[in-house]
């Protein structure tokens, strides 16, 4: 089902095209991924798993899990959540492991396109955008790459207004902040933007860093820079419960992508797992899209997100069951029901407290963890810091990791907020330019200002654990602590 009316968003759809699912024609729009088009047509089972042939559907919607692989135009293992529709495309579900076509022409060996800049920023979310803008303002040449077809990262899915102070975009909706920052980037002639471009590896080449990029899944690009800012965001956590792989179980971000980016309803009746900010905000967004949310379950004895987000959904009649967890999903090929139960003081389900919800969607909003794969691969020291969301790169007070010239910012540096991501991005962008000797000493003041703003933002109860996490990560690191 497609959304046409929305209180906040306006959906601009591309040209109408026809795709074929198992030979059946379906309507789709240019610019949307295959999985979104299939969802709009009610098709949720995308493949049957490699070994046990279990039905699987969309889960992460950002090309990171393996749940949406399908056969497209005869080519197996295509990630349909990030592959855009093309007119006449033939799509089939994949069952088990795939077979390659028997014949093909050997591909020609060609040199990759080469792009050079002072600073390569990986990730065009709030942190990366701010890093690029500020690095550019110090006169560094900047290349900014992002996997998505648009800049803004998760901001583009956020219909709610941001917290913080006005100068940090408080009171402005995420979608609008994305537009403002994108405009700032586009204004700067010394920032070159590459969209739909993934960074898949970092190699050290003398003084330079070689970032292997893949554009639109079809073009190899070698990005070379003397410094890097890695702002690759976060990834959703999964939790164990029975049948947790049934189609209809999604990460919260996947639902936001479907609903707010592509204007496709994820289903009709939803159970939300997790009452942190992501779960609460998602619930409100579902209601805005006209989807019924049956309940929110939360294992903790209290709402983990901001109280005001909880109050917003409570007054629309949505129950929040604290000290409750999901026991299992039920359904044949996709979610038909969810069974939840109350937890005792030792986190054990209390027998007899089971409740059954007739839902077709289960949204997991059980936390995020930093996407550190690139940093880890590049050799940065990694440390487990629960306060920052799990494994993070060790970095100094100016956001430089243990690999000289590689900086980190935003959720990749520790799960927090878009507001802090922007401040960290600003710091990382300036610090990278200082490291290269491009920025003048005066820019140190700007870093210090961002540090003060961060300190202020983090001074409340919500910031305390982050401050503690950062203290752990800075312990023992030399340099600009």
């Amino acid at each position, binding site marked *: 089902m497609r959304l046409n009316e929305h209180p906040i968003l306006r959906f601009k759809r591309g040209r109408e095209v026809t795709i074929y699912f198992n030979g059946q024609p379906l309507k789709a729009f240019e610019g949307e991924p295959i999985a979104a088009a299939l969802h709009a047509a009610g098709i949720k089972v995308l493949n049957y798993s*490699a070994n046990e042939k279990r039905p699987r559907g969309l889960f992460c919607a950002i090309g990171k899990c393996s749940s949406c692989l399908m056969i497209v135009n005869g*080519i*197996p*293992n295509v990630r349909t959540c990030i592959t855009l529709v093309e007119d006449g495309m033939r799509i089939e579900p994949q069952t*088990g*492991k*795939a*077979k*390659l*076509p*028997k*014949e*093909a*022409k*050997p*591909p020609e*060996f060609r040199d990759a396109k080469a792009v050079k800049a002072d600073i390569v920023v990986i990730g065009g979310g709030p942190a990366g955008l701010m890093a690029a803008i500020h690095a550019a303002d110090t006169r560094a040449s900047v290349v900014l790459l992002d996997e998505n077809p648009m800049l803004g990262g998760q901001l583009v899915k956020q219909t709610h207004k941001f917290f913080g102070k006005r100068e940090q975009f408080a009171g402005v909706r995420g979608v609008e902040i994305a537009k403002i920052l994108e405009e700032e980037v586009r204004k700067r002639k010394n920032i070159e933007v590459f969209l739909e471009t993934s960074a898949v*590896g970092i*190699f050290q080449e003398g003084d330079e860093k*070689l970032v*292997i990029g893949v554009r639109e899944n079809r073009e190899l690009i070698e990005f070379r820079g003397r410094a890097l800012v890695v702002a690759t965001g976060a990834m959703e956590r999964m939790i164990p419960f029975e049948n947790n792989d049934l189609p209809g179980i999604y990460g919260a971000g996947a639902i936001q992508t479907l609903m707010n980016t592509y204007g496709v309803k994820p289903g009709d009746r939803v159970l939300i797992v997790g009452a942190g900010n992501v779960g609460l905000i998602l619930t409100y967004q579902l209601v805005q899209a006209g989807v019924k949310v049956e309940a929110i379950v939360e294992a903790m004895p209290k709402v983990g997100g901001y109280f005001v987000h909880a109050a917003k959904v409570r007054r629309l009649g949505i129950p929040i069951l604290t000290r409750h967890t999901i026991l299992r999903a039920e359904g044949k090929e996709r979610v038909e029901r969810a069974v939840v139960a109350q937890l005792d003081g030792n986190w054990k389900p209390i027998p007899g407290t089971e409740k059954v919800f007739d839902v077709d969607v289960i949204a997991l909003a059980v936390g995020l963890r930093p996407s550190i794969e690139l940093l880890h691969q590049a*050799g940065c020291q990694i440390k487990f810091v629960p306060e920052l969301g799990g494994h993070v790169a060790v970095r100094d007070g100016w956001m430089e990791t243990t690999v000289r010239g590689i900086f980190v910012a935003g959720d990749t540096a520790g799960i927090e907020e878009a507001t802090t991501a922007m401040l960290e991005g600003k710091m990382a962008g300036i610090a990278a330019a200082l490291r290269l000797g491009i920025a003048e000493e005066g820019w140190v003041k700007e870093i210090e200002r961002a540090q003060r703003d961060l300190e202020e933002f983090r001074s409340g109860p919500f910031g305390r654990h982050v401050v503690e996490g950062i203290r752990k990560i800075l312990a023992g690191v030399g340099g600009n602590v």
Partner: protein
Amino acid sequence: MSKVAIIGGGITGVATAYELAKLGEEVILFEKNYFGSGSTFRCATGIRAQFTDEANIRLMKYAVERWEKLGEELGFDINFRQTGYLFLATSEEEVEAFKNNIRLQNKFGVPTRLIDMDEAKEIVPILNTEPFLAGAWNPRDGKANPFKTLFAYLFRARELGVEAREKAEIIGFEREGKEITAVKYRSNGKVESVKVDAVLNAANAWAPLINEMAGLKRELVPITPYKHQLVKTEPLERGQAEPLVCPPSWNDAYIIQDGEDGGIICGAGIEHRAKSMDDYEPTYDFLRGVLRYATMIAPPLRHAHIVRQWAGFYAKTPDKNPAIGKLLDNFYIAAGFSGHGFMMAPAVAQAMAELIAKGRSKVPIDWDWYDPYRFERGELRSSAFQIG
């Protein structure tokens, strides 16, 4: 019964521990990291008797016979599959060389034969037949799961009483004359010592460091670590490229479908001298270079996705043959396998265990050929046929 210390928890050390325990010896095994972490878990899984010299052909023929019954013996599915090795010739001269090798292999009972490209295509459905003239095909060659094989040996060894210790690093020996009397090691931050009757250096790339601790010259057995890399595709349906397929004239490039998940592993002779003993950094030139070859061998691979690239060491000797034998009265070595440690392990472990326990072995192993003192004497063997 005597107490034997084995240094190195890779396939050679673990398998020898098992074989010694079977012979009733008391064994203590030391691995400085986790089992298999050196080279075993990084290998390309292949097992072949298609060598080009008598010693290696005979040893590997015997090894393959052991491999055939190994899962049953160890009571563990090690996923040994005889899916063959297919070498491909790109010139008439190479076809002639293949024929000579086949004659030698046949002489020792290895059933290699020359096949045409139609037959090759049946065996490897995604093969590009165009550039090749003929193939050397031994259907008894194969592959096994290195992880499962190592653990199968380890579990059985422990059942037989072997004390196998991970994260236990050797730091020195006590030596009296030509005998090692005790092994000093560090475990959980504590230094400990154990009295032993014999020691086997099975540390492969790290073996020269162990020899040095035993008071021998590092260069006595010159083993140099070369970084070899592999890339692997996502899991694929079985049967598309089961054998190891290799045109040796294309820089020893090869592909082989993983016996476990069906992902296709691609290797090549693009090697780098390791900068240090923990230089496992993959390189960009390899990533692109190996795939250039792989897609010429099997063009449909172009549509598969690469999910990982990794590196491991070929612990190379100057003649690419391992050093297997006695270094001191009770100090033995089985190291420097130059990329063949996994495939040779069942035979070498048995030979080594029998040598230590009984002073002689039933295994058809040419002790002179693998003599660890040959380098010092300047008696190099003909280079073992090596791929990848």
